[in-house]
């Protein structure tokens, strides 16, 4: 097809020229707003991109970037997006990497068209369609990369907000603050159970003073934690049970399966110490 021969061959013939002009465009775009990319790295990225871009063009499919021929290019853009997100660039700023290639490429196409407007129009259209798709793909990749970062940060926040505290040799406490959903419960269980193994503790006190509501779902999550603890040979005491919660639990018909509940963390600690055979005397 004439498209394929045109763009790919032109790119190869005028590689140096296109790359130089593109670098000009990129240099101005890349250190303006939020982030900054070193010139040398930019040159390397432009070089790498043009290489995989050319290979993909050679394959023949130039109208649709979702095929296997464009896998390398897509992968490159995903990596680029990831790096740029971490460097603080916004999605559109990263996409500028692709869009700024338009002018240099069109310039080359115009020169190669040798005064034939029909040919130039066809080539330019193909190039536009292609670069637009790649640009949009870059925007999408950037957005996804940003989501990844946010998810990771949320995860870390979750972990920070459920600290496992060693109250005594053999007694751990977990003050639960905020809503208890399944994601939170997973994290709670994982860190608590691991801590039990690491400290060889016998008793875990789950303090729910900071949990606003206890409904069937929350009760289920609590019970899961209790069951997992029991399977590992640790005992569980739930503290911070307010009168309203006691009513809710009974009304919901939740079976606490013999888990001991205490109104305050202090009471729970006293019981735990008795259980492991520790007594404290006041002088």
């Amino acid at each position, binding site marked *: 097809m004439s498209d394929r021969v045109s763009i790919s061959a032109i790119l190869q013939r005028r590689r140096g020229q296109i790359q130089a002009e593109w670098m000009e465009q990129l240099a101005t775009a890349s250190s303006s707003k939020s982030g900054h990319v070193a010139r040398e790295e930019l040159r390397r990225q432009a070089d790498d991109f043009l290489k995989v871009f050319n290979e993909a063009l050679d394959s023949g499919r130039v109208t649709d970037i979702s095929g296997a021929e464009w896998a390398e290019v897509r992968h490159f853009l995903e990596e680029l997006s990831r790096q740029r997100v971490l460097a603080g660039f916004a999605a559109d700023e990263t996409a500028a990497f692709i869009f700024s290639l338009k002018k240099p490429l069109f310039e080359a196409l115009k020169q190669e068209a040798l005064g034939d407007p029909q040919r130039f129009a066809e080539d330019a259209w193909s190039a536009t369609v292609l670069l637009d798709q790649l640009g949009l793909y870059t925007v999408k990749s950037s957005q996804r990369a940003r989501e990844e970062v946010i998810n990771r940060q949320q995860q870390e926040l979750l972990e920070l907000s459920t600290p496992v505290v060693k109250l005594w040799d053999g007694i751990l406490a977990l003050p639960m603050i905020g809503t208890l959903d399944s994601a939170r419960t997973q994290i709670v269980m994982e860190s608590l159970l691991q801590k039990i193994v690491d400290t060889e503790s016998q008793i875990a006190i789950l303090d729910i003073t900071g949990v606003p509501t206890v409904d069937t779902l929350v009760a289920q999550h609590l019970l899961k934690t209790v069951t997992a603890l029991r399977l590992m*040979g640790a005992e569980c005491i739930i503290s911070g049970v307010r009168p309203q919660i006691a009513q809710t639990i009974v009304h919901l018909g939740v079976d606490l399966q013999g888990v001991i509940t205490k109104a305050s963390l202090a009471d729970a600690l006293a019981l735990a110490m008795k259980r492991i055979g520790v007594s404290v005397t006041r002088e």
Partner: protein
Amino acid sequence: MDRIPILRMGEFLLVTLQVDMHDQLALRLQDDLTHMIQAKSAKGVLIDISALEMVDSFMGRMIGDISGMARILDARTVLVGMQPAVAITLVELGLSLPGVDTALNVERGVQLLKRALA
């Protein structure tokens, strides 16, 4: 075929599960264990699963069966050393192994048995 070794620890028996079990091995273990409980008049059985990275419903049932058989022979069973990932998975799977005592490790398991028999 292989057998799972059963060690004697005083008046208790210790079984360490390390390999991926299959039907025959499980049945053979139950057979060996019940015979040994009787032969040594064992009062307690410790099942150490600290080396198991996975416990599915088949294994869960096998452990439950061993516990049941031991009880009928007047011996108490303690399951020790469950890994956190396994515990979380079992709970999600819906298996809570009721009727089986648990302990963090063999040492604690022995303490538990001694207290129970005192």
